[in-house]
């Protein structure tokens, strides 16, 4: 029943991104399914743009995210590069796949996670990522607790992130300078390897506070050089914080009286100067607390309440905050509410 040895058909080793020669360009460029354009043909970049639906992402980026001009500019540049690469591909010009690993640095609450989520969606629409999901992890998800635990853990997370974006929050915790036996280093090495070899499968975004990320990159020069885009998220100005607050209030279905607006602005001004200010996150917390005070104020009134009373925040809802009492000189060590 035995047969002579046969040559193996199929089951060759290759990854989905790299096809063997003669099979045409890679699958993530739908345009390449068409015939290669002649050298004197013209393509409309506007049409390409519309086909990807990228403008919707930009519009929602502009509408939902206040400020962050340098970030938005960089995102537009990346989108433009990917679109031009697609057009080049249609002419049969070779386009090397750009390196899109990124690092987001900035103070707390400057929108790093939110932008990462939009980034995954945008890269998916531009055909750079196959799936466009975001896997958000921290040190706990990557680094193991005993010898030999880290590698499988990191690899599992990387497998889950394939086809999308791996977002590593507080990435500087991966490397602890004071402990050279820390397993974080092993995780960093696996990350580096995957960032280099599986560039077509996933995009890694590292996020963290500016100063600590700088020292993280200083101790991992390989990591820094493999990241093409170091994007710094600036702190919000008072006007931007004000806009964020109004955006949040509108989303929650609340409104401010004109005096309320002034008080809110003053609150932000005071809060900004105090320690542990977390930009947009502090604004959100301030609004949450104002809602609490508003609700207890509603409960204490004996009169019947209408729609206006239920949706309008008054100055006293903000004035009850400790931020105002501390600004008047009574310092305390507790977290300002």
């Amino acid at each position: 029943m035995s047969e002579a040895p046969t040559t193996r058909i199929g089951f060759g080793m290759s990854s989905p991104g790299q096809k063997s020669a003669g099979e045409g360009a890679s699958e993530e460029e739908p345009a390449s399914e068409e015939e290669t354009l002649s050298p004197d043909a013209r393509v409309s970049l506007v049409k390409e743009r519309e086909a990807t639906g990228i403008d919707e992402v930009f519009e929602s980026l502009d509408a939902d995210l206040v400020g962050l001009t340098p970030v938005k500019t960089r995102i537009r540049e990346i989108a433009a590069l990917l679109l031009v690469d697609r057009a080049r591909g249609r002419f049969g010009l070779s386009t090397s796949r750009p390196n899109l690993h990124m690092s987001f640095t900035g103070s707390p609450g400057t929108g790093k996670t939110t932008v990462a989520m939009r980034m995954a969606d945008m890269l998916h629409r531009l055909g750079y990522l196959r799936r466009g999901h975001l896997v958000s992890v921290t040190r706990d998800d990557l680094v193991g607790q005993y010898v030999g635990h880290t590698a499988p853990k990191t690899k599992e997370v990387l497998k889950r992130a394939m086809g999308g974006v791996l977002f590593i929050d507080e990435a500087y915790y991966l490397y602890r300078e004071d402990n050279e036996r820390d397993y974080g280093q092993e995780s960093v090495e696996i990350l580096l390897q995957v960032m280099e070899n599986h560039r077509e499968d996933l995009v890694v975004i590292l996020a963290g506070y500016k100063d600590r990320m700088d020292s993280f990159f200083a101790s991992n020069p390989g990591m820094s050089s493999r990241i093409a885009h170091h994007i710094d998220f600036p702190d919000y100005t008072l006007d931007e914080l004000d806009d964020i607050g109004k955006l949040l209030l509108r989303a929650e279905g609340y409104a401010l009286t004109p005096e309320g607006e002034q008080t809110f602005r003053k609150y932000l001004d005071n809060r900004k100067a105090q320690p542990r200010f977390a930009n947009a996150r502090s604004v959100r917390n301030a609004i949450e607390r104002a809602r609490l005070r508003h609700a207890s104020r509603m409960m204490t009134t004996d009169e019947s309440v209408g729609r206006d009373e239920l949706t309008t925040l008054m100055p006293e809802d903000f004035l009850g905050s400790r931020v105002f009492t501390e600004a008047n000189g009574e310092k305390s060590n507790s977290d300002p509410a």
Partner: protein
Amino acid sequence: MRITQGTFSFLPDLTDDEITAQIQYALDNNWPCSVEFTDDPHPRNVYWDMWGLPMFDLADAAGVLAEVNACRKAKPEQYIRINAYNANYGKQTVALSYLVQRPSDEPGFRLDRQEVKDRQIRYSLHPYAADAPPGRRYNGQQ
């Protein structure tokens, strides 16, 4: 003798692109995939060795294919299959299982006849490959 086990086994061997498409189909149906290998080709050998744990929460086929390639590298002369498990209540079974690698040379099976009492004959299949100890069955390789 080319053994035929699992889905697609009467088709020509799948290319990597076809394997990727099948993995993606399984993942789109929320079936976690796992990779298994063996060098015992007997059709009743249902317990293959696991290559790592089953992979949950994957979105893209590249992760599974990376494991398949790692397994191919470590076991170039063994059978490798992908199992996709349907965990839905009422199913809870393997939904799709197919070979993604076979040894370059498959020697096939011998038919053994055993005479038992009253001139009865019992038949059994014996894979020629199983004559060698495990791990050295196909071209003396893993």
